Each structure stands twice: as C-alpha cells, then as structure tokens.
C-alpha cells in the first residue's frame, strides 16, 4: 500500500462482525465498507442496535472482525490500534484516581515521567476543570467527567479519535457546550474523528460526512452524505440555517426508513438472533 497522504486514515473493507453467543450467532454488522480520509470528521448514525459501537470496536482493535479487514493509514490493523484514542459512551474514568491522575493515566502507562503532572494539569485547565485537579470522579457532575475523559483521550495526541456517543448521557445544554468545545479542540488539530451517535442533529452539525447504517442485525452502510456546511461552525446557531435543515431532512428521510424497520422487527419479536442463521 502507498504510504503518506493519499491513503485513508481508516478503511474498512467488507468488515463483518459476528458474536458467538449461547443462543446462536449474532451478526451485528455485515460487509461494511467505509473510508475516512485523514483529518476528516465522520459520523456514523443508525437506528438503535445497528452495530455502530461494533464498528468502532473493530477500528479500535478491541474486537477482531469475523471477516474483512481494517486498515489504518493503509496498513492492516493487528491487535490494538495504537494510533487511536477512544472515548466511551459510559464512564471510563478510574474512580480511584483523581482528575489529574486520570488525565495523566495514558502518560503514566507509556512511562512518561518528566512533566507528566504538569502536562496533565495543562489539559485539566484546557478542558475547563481548573480547581478540580484533586477531585475524584464521583465528586464531579456528568459534564465534568466527560471533560476529564476528553483530556484523558487527547493528552496522548492520537491521530484518530473514536467517539462512541460520548455526550449521550448529558443534558441538552451541557451537550451543546461540549460539542462546541470538541469542535474547537479538533479544528486545525489534523485528527481524524469517527463519531458514533444516534442523534442526527449532532451528526450533521459536527461532521464533514455522515454515514448511515441500516437497521440491525447484519447492518451495512446504506448511505454516505457529505456535509458542506462552512467551518468554523457555531453549533449554537447552525441548527437554524436553511442548509442544515435541508441536509438534515435528506438524511432523515433515509434514517427514518431504517428506524421504522428496526421498530417493526422489534415489535414482531424477530430482532434477536432469529434473523441471522446465515451468519458468516
């Protein structure tokens, strides 16, 4: 493969992810093809249970695809993806470490001794948590914990950021503020972002491109929608612009179909393992 700028930061080729369970196999995603150019902000949306997180886990190297290949910078991924940082949907901070220790955790693991705490402190300030360095996660609000998680992920300076509904648990206002700050951090950072969400508004307002997954199980890519909204964007205003409404409407028309299919399957009780005997 060619190295350098022309190879995709992340590429999925025919990736199928099958889970082997007690009640039979469950194929979460089937033959997903996806290319993300370096420095792009790409969102993956889809109805509940369409295997969005599964795709991220494959790119992270936390789960190996049952079939197909994940390429990072043109190289096939083996084991964990060392170039990626992962922000989880759930709280992933270590409850027994303080804010600054959590932020410094990645540096500690890679054996960075010099100025570790100073660098961590810098990030704590950067995400707006000055004064909370020595607080434990349980003493923080949900938004503050997310800020800590952002600092924890970004301090290691990964080329690729994988974000799994990172702000899903936050209230609407906190969420918009966090999204805005994420964009500010990302702008000019050159980092590639793969952002998973079920919230189409969030996806359209943040991304360069929205990828739509079909209803699960055995989801695949049903559409890719470039988002040509100008940057830098002010997320607090962007949602009322005509172009936003237009893009949102176009993607929603397709997403709606998938959501309805998921709903129908669920109400007929076939959304589980039954529909996937031909897993492979």
């Amino acid at each position, binding site marked *: 493969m060619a190295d350098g700028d022309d190879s995709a930061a992340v590429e999925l080729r025919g990736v199928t992810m099958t889970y082997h369970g007690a009640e039979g196999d469950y194929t979460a995603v089937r033959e997903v093809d996806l290319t993300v150019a370096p420095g792009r902000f790409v969102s993956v949306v889809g109805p509940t249970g369409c295997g969005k997180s599964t795709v991220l886990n494959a790119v*992270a190297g*936390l789960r190996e695809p049952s079939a197909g290949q994940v390429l990072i910078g043109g190289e096939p991924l083996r084991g*964990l*993806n*060392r170039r*990626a*940082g*992962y922000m*989880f949907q*759930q*709280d*992933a*901070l*270590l*409850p*027994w*470490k*303080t804010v600054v220790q959590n932020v410094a*955790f*990645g540096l*500690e*693991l*890679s054996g960075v001794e010099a100025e570790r705490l100073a660098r961590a402190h810098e990030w704590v300030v950067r995400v707006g948590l000055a004064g909370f360095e020595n*607080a*434990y*996660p*349980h*003493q*923080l*609000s*949900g938004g503050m*914990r997310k800020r800590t998680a952002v600092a*924890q992920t970004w301090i*290691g300076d990964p080329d690729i950021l994988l974000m799994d509904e990172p702000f899903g648990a936050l209230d609407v206002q906190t969420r918009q503020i966090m999204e805005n700050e994420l964009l500010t951090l990302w702008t000019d950072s050159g980092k590639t972002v793969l952002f998973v969400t079920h919230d189409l508004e969030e996806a359209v307002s943040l991304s360069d491109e929205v990828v739509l997954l079909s209803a699960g199980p055995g989801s695949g890519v049903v559409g890719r929608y470039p988002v040509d909204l100008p940057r830098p964007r002010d997320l607090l205003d962007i949602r009322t612009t005509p172009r936003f409404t237009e893009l949102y409407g176009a993607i929603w028309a397709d997403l709606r179909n998938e959501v309805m299919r998921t709903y129908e399957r669920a109400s007929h009780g076939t959304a589980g393992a039954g529909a996937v005997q031909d897993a492979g």
Partner: protein
Amino acid sequence: MSALPTGPRAPELSKTPADTAPSRSAGPRRRRTGWTGRVRPAVLTAQLGLAVLLVAGWEVGSRTGVVDPFFFSSPTAVAGRIGQWLGSGEIAGHLLTTLLEAALALVIGGVLGLGIGFLLARARTLAAVLDPYIKVLNALPRVVLAPIFLLWFGLGIWSKVAFGVTLVFFIVFFNTYQGVREVDRVLVDNARMLGAKESQLIRHVLLPSAMSWIFSSLHTSVGFAIVGAVVGEYLGASEGMGYLIAQAEGTFDTTGVFAGMVVLSVVVVAIDLLVNRVERRLLRWQPARERTHG
C-alpha cells in the same frame, strides 16, 4: 465457574461492589445516618444503659442466687480476674501468641487468597478445572482439619497458623475472584486503549477494583484469623488465649473462661476499629455512602 460458593462470606452479602462510578454530584455527602454514622446521643445513652442493665442484672442475679455463680460467675469476679491477669502481666504472653498466630494466618491466607484469586479470575480454563476442588475444600468444615494440623505441625504456633490460613484463604480468595471478575469492562477497555499492558492493567485497574471487595471481607477475615488461632489453641497448645480458656474450663473455673472471652472480645473490637480506619483511608475515593462500615 460463576457458581463458586461464597463460603464464609455470608455476612457480607449485602455489600455491593463499588467498581462503577456512581453518577452523583459533589453535593452534601455527609448525611450519614443510623448505624453507619456518628452515633447520636440518644442511641449512645440507650446503648450504655443496656450495658449497665445487663451487667448489673448479672451481678445481682449472681449474688442473690438467681443464677448459679459456679456456672455463670459474676461481673465483679470476672473484672477481678482480668485485673489480676493485667497486674501480674501473665495475660500479655498468651494474648501476644494468639495475635501473632492470627496475624500470620491473616497475612499468609490473605496473600495466597489474593494471588490465587487473581490467577483464577484471569485464567478461565484453569478456574473451570479447579472449580469442583475449590467447592469441596470450601464445603469441608474447617474444624476437622485442626487435629490433622496438630499432627503435622505440632503443638507450636504453626498448627494454629495453618488452621487460620484455611479459614482466611477462602474469604479473601472468593472476594478477590469476584472483585476481579466483576471489573467494569469499559474500565479495562479504556485502560487498554490508553496503552496498558497486562501488568499495568492489574496494578491500575483490576487490583484497585477488587480492593473494595477485599476490604469488605477484611473484617470477616480478621475475625476468622482470630477464631482459627483460638480454636487451634483450644484443641492443643501450651500458650495463647484459647489455651488459657481451655485450662480454666478444665478446672471448672468459669470466671477464667468469662475473663478470657471478655479480653478476646475487647481485642477484636479494637482491631476492627483499626481496620475501619485503614479501610477509610485506602478507599477514600469512594462516596461515603458506599462504604460498608461507618
């Protein structure tokens, strides 16, 4: 393997693991009430009153002949005996022997339980193979081992230590095993994505996560270590609190038996308070309400 028996951990079953960060804000966390909090004056008064009532009732009953002093002694006689023991200093040697045996049992049993608990929690196949053996060993009433240990290790402290180890080991083992297995998957994935190697995973994630479980068992472990020492001494020894009580019993000296019981209780309560302090220090990252003991 999920059906590992919880053995002697029963009294701690109400304890919930605290490995997931609760989504509570920093608000006022000091509303600790009831048993876990500082004891309110009314409760304290009632507690003292009950103690006075019981001791006074015992004393009066013993003096008036309602209870037979031969079988039940009396508080003044017991206090007198304890005073005599303390005065002559003869109690110190016995107490130190028992505490030494208990401490050794706690350390050896704790280290073994921690190590093997970790190993089996990480090596699923090995755990599955050993499962029935562990179940059988844990199901065995431990007291029957005491005579064997006396034969193997003699009348000195090591037979008591070995006996205590068999009690402590399973408590720590099951709690460690459970603690490591119940670690939040996301914490592990997150640490791995941040670059944690296996040894770092153990140190930064698995061990701290298991700590709350291990500590919840520490109170029980300390108690069982002392039980092991005392029962071992009771069955055959030349020193220790169990020996002292057995000697008193042999000469129908009820006062001696009661005095020994009182000394042991006071020591165990003192140690338990100490464990509380250590626990509170090491688990200070937990919200106050999640700690088991106040």
